[in-house]
C-alpha cells in the first residue's frame, strides 16, 4: 500500500497522502476489494458491531470524566462510585441519556455480535481460508465478555458486588495458584477499593485493545474476502460488486433499523434488560439470587451446573473445577471450530441435516441462558407471555424432576456434543445438495 501511487488528484490531499499514506489506505479499503454481490442482511451485523464499539468508547469516555472509582461511603452509607453514577444520571447534562446509551449499548453490542457469529456458524464462514478471521472473532467475544463484567462492577451496586465477588472466586478453582491469583486480582483478600480501582483502569484500557483486534479482524477479512450465503468461492467479476456504494448503503440501511430499536430501548425501556437490584448501592451482602447480565447467562449456566466430583483413577476434579473448566472450554472450543467441522460445504443452505442441528444449537443457547437465570434446585420453566411453562415438577422428598440443574447438564452436553461429535461426524456422512456453479449462474435444475 505504501508503495502504491496516491489515488488523489487534489494537490493538497495528494501531497499529504504522499507524506503519510493513510488516506490511500482508507480509500483502498473502500474501493479496491471485490465483494460477493449476493450478501444478505445477516452480513450487516459486522459493521453494526463496529459502530457499537465506537458508541461504547465515546459514551464511556465521557462518563469517565465524571465517574469516581472509590468505595468510600458518605454519611448515608452510599459509596462514592455509586454516587458518581447517580450524579451522572441526575446532574450531568444529558447524563441519563449518556449512561443508558452505554448500558443498553452493551446489550445491543452483544446482540450484534451474537447475530454476527451465528451468521458465521450457519454459512460456514469459519472454514478455510477464514480460520484466522474466525479466531480473531472469538478473541473479540471473550474480550467483550471481560469488559462488560468489569464495567458492570463499576456501578458498585448490589449485583455489581455479587458479580465481582463470585467471578473472581472462579479463579480459586485453579489448583495451587488459584488463591494467589485471587489476591492478585483483588489487590487484597476481599472485594474492596483496590479491586474497584484496577477494574476501572482495565475497563478503560481493554476496549482499545479490542479495537486493535477489530482492526486485525478487518485486515484478514480484506485479505481472504467475504464469504456469502451460497458459501462458494468467487468465480468471475460477474459475481462481485464494490463495497462502495453497494454495501455502504445496505449497511447504512441495516444500521438505521438497528439504531431505531436500540434508541427506542434507551428512550423508553432502559432498565428492561437490567437487574433492578443494581440500582441500590452494595451493602456487601450477597443477594440470594445472583444473576449476571443476560449475555453471560449461558456461560454462567455451564459454570454452575456441575455439582458432583469426577474421580479419574484417583485424581479428583471437584464440581467447582469441572464448572470452571467447562466454562473455559465452552469458549475455548469455539477456536477449534474450523477444524471440527469436517464438511467441505460451507453454507448451511446446502446441508439439510446440519441445518437441524444448527437450529438445535441456537435453541440450546437459549435454554442455557434460562438455566443461568433460574435457581439450580427448583423446577425448570420456560417464561412465555402467557405465564410459566413448567418443564419440571416436585417429586416429593426434596427431589425435583426436571430441575434447572438437570436441564442445564443436558444442554451443556448438547453444547459440547455439537462441536465434538455432531460436526465432525456429520461432515463424513451427510449428503449435501448440489452446489451452484457460481454466484451469477442460477442453480442447475
Amino acid at each position, binding site marked *: 500500500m505504501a508503495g502504491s501511487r496516491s489515488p488523489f488528484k487534489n494537490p493538497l490531499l495528494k501531497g499529504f497522502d504522499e507524506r503519510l499514506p493513510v488516506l490511500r489506505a482508507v480509500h483502498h479499503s473502500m474501493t479496491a476489494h471485490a465483494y460477493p454481490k449476493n450478501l444478505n442482511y445477516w452480513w450487516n451485523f459486522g459493521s453494526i458491531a463496529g459502530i457499537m464499539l465506537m458508541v461504547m468508547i465515546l459514551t464511556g469516555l465521557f462518563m469517565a470524566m465524571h465517574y469516581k472509582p472509590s468505595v468510600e461511603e458518605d454519611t448515608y452509607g452510599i459509596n462514592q462510585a455509586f454516587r458518581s453514577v447517580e450524579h451522572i444520571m441526575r446532574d450531568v447534562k444529558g447524563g441519563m441519556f449518556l449512561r443508558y446509551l452505554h448500558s443498553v449499548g452493551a446489550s445491543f453490542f452483544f446482540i450484534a455480535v451474537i447475530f454476527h457469529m451465528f451468521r458465521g456458524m450457519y454459512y460456514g464462514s469459519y472454514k478455510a481460508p477464514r480460520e484466522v478471521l474466525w479466531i480473531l472473532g472469538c478473541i473479540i467475544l471473550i474480550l467483550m465478555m471481560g469488559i462488560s463484567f468489569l464495567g458492570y462492577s463499576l456501578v458498585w451496586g448490589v449485583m455489581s458486588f455479587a458479580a465481582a*465477588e*463470585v467471578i473472581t*472466586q*472462579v479463579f480459586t478453582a485453579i489448583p495451587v495458584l488459584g488463591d494467589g491469583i485471587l*489476591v*492478585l*486480582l*483483588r*489487590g*487484597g*483478600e*476481599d*472485594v*474492596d*477499593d*483496590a479491586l474497584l480501582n*484496577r477494574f476501572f483502569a482495565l475497563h478503560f484500557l481493554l476496549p482499545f485493545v479490542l479495537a486493535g483486534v477489530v482492526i486485525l479482524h478487518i485486515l484478514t477479512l480484506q485479505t481472504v474476502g467475504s464469504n456469502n450465503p451460497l458459501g462458494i468461492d468467487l468465480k468471475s467479476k460477474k459475481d462481485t460488486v464494490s463495497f462502495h456504494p453497494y454495501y455502504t448503503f445496505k449497511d447504512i440501511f441495516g444500521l438505521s433499523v438497528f439504531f431505531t430499536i436500540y434508541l427506542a430501548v434507551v428512550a423508553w425501556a432502559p432498565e428492561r434488560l437490567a437487574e433492578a437490584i443494581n440500582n441500590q448501592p452494595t451493602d*456487601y*451482602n*450477597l443477594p*440470594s*439470587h*445472583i444473576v449476571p447480565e443476560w449475555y453471560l447467562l449461558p456461560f454462567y449456566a455451564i459454570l*454452575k451446573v*456441575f*455439582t458432583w*466430583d469426577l474421580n479419574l483413577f484417583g485424581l479428583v476434579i*471437584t*464440581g*467447582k*473445577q469441572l*464448572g470452571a473448566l467447562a466454562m473455559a472450554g465452552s469458549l475455548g472450543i469455539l477456536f477449534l471450530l474450523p477444524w471440527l467441522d469436517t464438511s467441505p460445504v460451507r453454507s448451511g443452505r446446502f446441508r439439510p441435516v446440519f441445518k437441524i442441528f444448527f437450529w438445535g444449537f441456537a435453541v440450546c443457547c437459549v435454554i442455557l441462558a434460562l438455566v443461568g437465570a433460574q*435457581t*439450580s*434446585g427448583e423446577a425448570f420453566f420456560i417464561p412465555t407471555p402467557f405465564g410459566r411453562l413448567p418443564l419440571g415438577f416436585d417429586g416429593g422428598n*426434596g427431589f425435583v424432576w426436571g430441575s434447572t*440443574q438437570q436441564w442445564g447438564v443436558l444442554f451443556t452436553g448438547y453444547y459440547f456434543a455439537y462441536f465434538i461429535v455432531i460436526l465432525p461426524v456429520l461432515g463424513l456422512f451427510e449428503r449435501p445438495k448440489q452446489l451452484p456453479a457460481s454466484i451469477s449462474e442460477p442453480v442447475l435444475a
Partner: protein
Amino acid sequence: MAGTPTDVANPDRRNFIVLSTMAMAGIGAASAGVALVRTMTPTRDVAGGGTIEVSLDGIAEGSGIVATSGRKKYSVRRRTSAEIEAAVAGDADKLRHQETDAERVQRPEWLVLRLQCPHLGCPPQGTAAGEKRGEFGGFFCPCHNSQFDTSGRIRKGPSPANLPVPKYFFASDEMIVIGKEA
C-alpha cells in the same frame, strides 16, 4: 538484505551478539513484568484482616449470630445436643472433605465458621434459628444449593470443601476473639 547475519565476516560472532542482546532484552522485559505485577499485590493497609470480639451472651441454644469484620462474615452458632450428636455421628460417613467434628470445634457447643461458601463465595444461610438450613440441618448456600451439616461440612451440592473454620479462641466463657489464636 544487507546486514543480515549471513553476509557478515564473522557470522558466529554476529549470532552471539544478537542472541545475547535478545537475552538481555528478555531479562529486562521479564523483570519489568515482575515489577508491574508486584504493584498489583495487596498493600500493607489492606493486607491481613483484623480481629473481632464476639460476645456469646444471649445467644440461645439452636441459634447463632453473624459477626462481621471488614468484609468478612463469620457465623457463631450455639448447637443443641441433638445437633452435636448428629455432627459426631457424621464423622463415620464417607465425606467429600473428610474432617471430624472434634477437629472443627474447640467446644462442642459452639460452632464458629467463616461464612463463605467454598464453591463461589456466597454466604450460606442457617446461622439464626429461622433461616433455611438445608437437608442436613446445618447450613444452606442459596446460590447453587450446597448443603452443609451441623458441623459445617459439605454433604450435597457443588462446594468442594467444608465451610472454613477461622482462627479463634475463647477469651472467656462469654467472649470469643475471631481472627487469631490465643
